[in-house]
């Protein structure tokens, strides 16, 4: 059992941490790729749409200017429903991407997304992804909702527990 809101789970893949003292979500994962390839997968629109959305969704790029100071906007289409996301490319560099991120359903909410890429030297790269929001409530709402649309049915039971007021 955890006694703080910091939880690190590891199964050899993505690790996650939600520290108790900062409204931050940190994730870490290794990829069989170079930092340059990872930057490209995040900044080349045609590559980006192939992996970012949840399964069964379609990602439509509306605006995409992947350079320092540029901006972006895309729509996530799930079962005919469109969800808009937008932000700026604050820093685009070979070892680092910094972007702002807003879900248009909550237009006043903005998170700062920092991706850093550590070259592990054998064709592998460790990516650290940090999302910083302005309030703990926002961070926790993001964690609770998964932020992504198209929830996994496997967790319906958990949702039911919450709905039933059992917790």
């Amino acid at each position, binding site marked *: 059992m955890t006694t*703080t809101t910091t939880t690190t789970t590891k199964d050899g893949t993505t690790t996650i941490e939600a520290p108790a003292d900062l409204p931050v979500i940190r994730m870490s994962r290794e990829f069989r*790729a170079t930092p340059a390839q990872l930057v490209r997968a995040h900044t080349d629109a045609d*590559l980006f749409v192939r992996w970012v959305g949840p399964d069964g969704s379609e990602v439509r790029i509306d605006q995409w200017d992947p350079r320092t100071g540029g901006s972006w906007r895309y729509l996530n289409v799930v079962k005919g429903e469109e969800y808009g996301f937008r932000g700026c490319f604050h820093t685009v560099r070979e070892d680092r991407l910094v972007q702002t991120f807003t879900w248009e359903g909550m237009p006043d909410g903005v998170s700062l997304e920092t991706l850093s890429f550590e070259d592990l030297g054998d064709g592998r790269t460790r990516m650290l992804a940090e999302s910083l929001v302005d309030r703990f409530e926002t961070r926790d709402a993001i964690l609770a909702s998964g932020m992504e649309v198209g929830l996994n049915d496997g967790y319906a039971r958990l949702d039911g527990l919450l709905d039933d007021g059992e917790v």
Partner: protein
Amino acid sequence: MPDPLSQAFAALADPTRRDIVARLCAGDATVGELAAPYDVSLQAVSKHLKVLEGAGLVSRGRDAQRRPVHLEAEVFDLMTKWIERYRREAEARYQRLDAVLAQLDEHTTDPHEPTERGETA
């Protein structure tokens, strides 16, 4: 109205409350026992306990005299599950990224094969 998970996280954003929770892991305790190590009043500790209780993290026993504080472990399990769910969604996304990167790799290992859009990696 904040959802239960947000309440639980918010309640644990305070270091004293986190410490109280950590000590309750060892077993139930009275308010007096919980207050003993701190340089604060019983009232202040009671206030912290009210927040934890409101978030469903602890409950108070029925014994009118002692009213021992009890940790509700299930809530922590739930928080861990929510975070794990978020992590799995990220992992699924990164597995799709793996597949895209693997295709980039094939292109870069064969210099004769043009990249999809003639761009450099």
